[in-house]
């Protein structure tokens, strides 16, 4: 236990000193994961809403597939993106492998199913309540899905956070497509994995503390916003 106490003290010193290397890693992590979540929402929210209000053959299979994709192993996604972006792959000429862009790409693939599957569920529940009224007003299914996404914006915030949690916490995909290159593609999770195996526990622990703190702060913020919105809008 002495090791843990000593590592914690050193970790806090790194944080307080504002260690440049540490904050560089934190900055890149946030950049990659927030970009991925943003892209995943742009794709996943309309997709989820469209499936929720849509009627088309194979709808049930699509829902089951989408739900299953939520459990997609990050290393598998990393491997697939690696194969696509590697020299010999279909997108190899773009030269994206081992760049932050590749990491954003991989995390987006991981987060889209979460955002789409969970928003599908939330929008479909609301659709049960609203569909007669909206159809009576002459709103098309397309219009209804946009209306419901906006109407449910505060509930969807929780889903966005779930997506962010997934992106920020995964190691496998960013490790494979980013390559964990010092100063270029090294993010919090890959650094923690590397430094722990090297025995540099203070840096690993400091990053662990930041990672947990960021996730906690975002969730607290979202909770406060949701509470206030529910009081105001009912």
């Amino acid at each position, binding site marked *: 236990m002495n090791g843990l106490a000593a590592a914690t003290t050193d970790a806090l010193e790194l944080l307080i000193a504002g260690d440049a290397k540490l904050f560089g890693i934190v900055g890149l992590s946030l950049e990659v994961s927030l970009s991925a979540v943003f892209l995943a929402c742009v794709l996943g929210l309309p997709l989820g809403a469209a499936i929720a209000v849509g009627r088309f053959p194979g709808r049930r299979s699509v829902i089951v597939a989408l739900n299953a994709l939520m459990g997609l192993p990050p290393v598998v996604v990393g491997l697939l993106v690696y194969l696509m972006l590697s020299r010999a792959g279909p997108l190899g000429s773009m030269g994206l492998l081992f760049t932050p862009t590749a990491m954003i790409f991989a995390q987006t693939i991981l987060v889209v199913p979460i955002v789409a599957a969970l928003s599908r569920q939330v929008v479909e529940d609301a659709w049960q*309540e*609203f569909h*007669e*009224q*909206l*159809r*009576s*007003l*002459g*709103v098309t299914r397309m*219009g209804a899905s946009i*209306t419901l996404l906006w*109407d*449910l914006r505060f509930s969807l915030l929780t889903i966005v956070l779930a997506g962010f949690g997934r992106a920020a916490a995964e190691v496998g995909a960013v490790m494979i497509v980013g390559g964990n290159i010092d100063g270029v593609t090294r993010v919090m999770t890959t650094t923690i994995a590397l430094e722990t195996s090297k025995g540099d526990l203070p840096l690993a622990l400091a990053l662990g503390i930041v990672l947990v703190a960021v996730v906690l702060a975002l969730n607290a913020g979202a909770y406060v916003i949701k509470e206030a919105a529910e009081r*105001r*809008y*009912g």
Partner: protein
Amino acid sequence: MMDAPSLLPLQLRDVVFVAGHRRIIDGITVEFAAGTRTLMVGPNGAGKSVLLRLCHGLLTPSSGRVAWNSTPATKAPGTPRRQAMVFQRPVMLRRSALANIVYALQAAGYPRAEHLDRAHAALQRVGLVSVARHSARVLSGGEQQRLALARAWAIEPEVLFLDEPTANLDPGATHEIEAVIEAMHQAGTKIIMVTHNLGQAHRMGDEILFIHRGRIAECSPAERFFKHPATSEAAEFINGELPW
């Protein structure tokens, strides 16, 4: 919109609606003319609400025809929608009372420039101007139902369908709702309303449609229906003897 040809009369011919193996509407032929207030009464499960939805276009008949005098029930592009429905439980979007009406005007196809004026006027008519900026979902049940009526009225429908609009309300709120419906009727809107409340049917109905087991058992002026019902089912229903 007054220049457009009238939607009415609305004609139903041999309309049947089957759900599962049950014929919920079992061959209804009826015509709804302009002007009068038609009230549909009948025991639970008689098919009143389904009939209303068939008329409004929310359900499609399994067989038979629902035909408006002019344009089809669905909105033709570029023309404002001219029929509206108010449900038993008002459903409001998470936005202000005013914005809920603006939303309906937009969906109905009214030009953007008219939205605010029309919405304000509609709130005025139902006495909800003071809560225009309040979120619609935090209003009381009675206020929400009045807002639903304002939302329907804003698009100046030629026909208004109502499905037990006062079933969840106390007598005070019920009275207010009835007053708004009456005002809409005075303004020229055809009223077609389902109710469980015979007192209400008596107060508000010009014409009573008595629905029993998916068929129209009786269709007559309100006065005659309550004094001299033509069928034994109607007589039993009025006397509260029909089991439901």
